[in-house]
């Protein structure tokens, strides 16, 4: 189970976002919707431990993950979290296979790569450089990299952003199927996909943006 408590993050420009407490049960799929810039991606970054909260914490199975050392957060992320980034975060000059095999540096077993790529319909692109792929193809590579380690938590930031509705729906279905009992938290802008998830959260109501002056006043 993942639970957030009094999460607040301040940015370098002095502004910040405070989040209401949220809880995500194991095996649950959740869609997060909301206007651009309302703090959806930041929330995912906080859950993944790639960004430290200024206040509050993220608890994973009852443990305060925000207090973990960076090494432990890295280890947890590489083993248990599959993160699909909005801008893919792929090594553009390397091949699809290299991008997935990158995880082997941390001992992740990538032997199921061919099967996974085949299920995502991009096996033929395995040896192609990422920079030569279309946006949709890159998105599937990012999904494959996140799923190859069979994570217990999948965090997906606009995983269907570059896909048409039909393909996007298929990808969401695959994500839910491949979550395999794990937790899936996905940011999406497409309301039509929301029914596919167990639960939907409107981030406009959960994330509270504070301007720099406002933060100073409260301080």
């Amino acid at each position, binding site marked *: 189970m993942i639970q957030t408590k009094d999460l607040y993050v301040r*940015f370098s420009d002095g502004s910040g976002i405070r989040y209401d407490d949220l809880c995500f049960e194991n095996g649950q799929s959740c869609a997060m919707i909301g206007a651009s810039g309302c703090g959806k991606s930041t929330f995912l970054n906080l859950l993944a431990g790639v960004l430290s909260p200024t206040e509050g914490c993220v608890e994973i199975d009852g443990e305060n993950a925000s207090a973990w050392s960076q090494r432990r957060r*890295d280890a947890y992320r590489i083993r248990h979290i599959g*993160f699909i980034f909005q801008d893919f975060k792929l090594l553009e*000059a390397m091949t699809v296979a290299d991008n997935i095999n990158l995880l082997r540096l941390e001992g992740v077993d990538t032997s199921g790569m061919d099967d996974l790529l085949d299920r995502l319909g991009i096996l033929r692109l395995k040896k192609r450089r990422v920079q030569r792929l279309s946006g949709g193809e890159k998105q599937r590579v990012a999904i494959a990299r996140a799923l190859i380690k069979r994570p217990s938590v999948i965090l997906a930031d606009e995983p269907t952003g570059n896909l048409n509705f039909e393909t996007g729906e298929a990808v969401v279905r695959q994500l839910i199927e491949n979550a395999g009992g794990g937790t899936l938290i996905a940011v999406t802008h497409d309301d039509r996909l929301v029914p596919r998830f167990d639960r939907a959260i409107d981030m406009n109501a959960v994330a509270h943006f504070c301007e720099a002056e406002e933060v100073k006043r409260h301080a």
Partner: protein
Amino acid sequence: MLRFALKHMATRRAKLMMTALSVVITAAVALLAYNISTQVSEGIVNTAAKFDIIIGPSGSATQLAMNTMFFTDKPLGTIPYDLVEELNASGLVSAAIPFSMGDSYNAAPVVGTDARLLEGKALKRGEMFDAPMEAVVGWAVASQYGLQPGDSLVTTHGLSSDGAAHAESPLTVTGVLARTDTAYDNAVFTPVSTIWALHEHGHEHGEDGHDEHDDHDDHEADEHDEHGHAGEGSICAVLVRSTGFDAYSKLMSAYGSRSEYLIINPNTVLREVMDNVDLSRRIVYLLCGVILVMNLFVVSVIALLSLYDARREIALMRLIGISMGRINRLYLIQNALTGAIAMALALGLSRLCLLAMRGFVAGMGIVLNAWRVYPKEWLILLAVFLLSVAPTLIATARMAGRDSVDGRS
């Protein structure tokens, strides 16, 4: 890890090649400047200092020193061989060795002397010359022309290879000197009587007017006297080892006052030459310094550009959970491989340049050993290597401990 590092390097090959090329040039220039100046200085010191007095015909002290110590430059002229006997009979010298030069073998000088000039020099093959028309050849000459004891060699008149050949009077090689990395490697040694015999013979033919000397008759007849082609009973100089300081002073006083002779202490002249070499070395170092600074600037710019890419890639790898330790190792392997290849190429390039410069420096009487690597050269390589890889290593080290993302995304 290594396989991934190699694949990752392949994606950045253009930048890595540019970095490596700049590092190669920087390191090679530094190595070359250090190696060549050190070998030249060592060559000068090792070649001289065997004798405390050199007596020759009046003229330039530097020319006399360069001619007798490094077998370069033309002899000043001739002096009578009787002077050798006079010095040996004086009781003031432990050795008075005749020195004569003017002929060559494929541009390598033929030195007329006696076996004592080669004392302390080991023979690689064969034995010392013992009679006229026998010769011991230096290591480089023997290597270049495949000379072995028992072989014959035909000398030519003058110090360039286009002089008239003494074809009718070949010398027999009796021995080959071991490598010395001095001017001795590039010379042929023979009894002084050989030189007399060759020129007596040569003159006879010249007078008959039937051989290849014909074209040179007038011109060379002048050169014989002017440039020290020693005829019977004459030599170009005497190399002297005095019996002690008292004897040295007496000899300097006795022969210094005779206007037909020039008497020098080779160590004194050597110091002057070394001063000039030091000045040249400082100029070379200065020029190399400028090149080094320019190349280090280029390396820094390329490193900064690579750093920009590296930061993006490192941030990306951090986001998916690759630990900073692994990332450091990944870049360390790549930097080490690039650096090691660049260092090897720099070492190779500097040796090739040394080989190319051998001929030029040989003209100064110094034989460069292109394969000689001084301990300080490893330090130079290490310093350039560290300078080239430091920026990336510092950047990766600085990224450790930071959040993988900053700000709202």
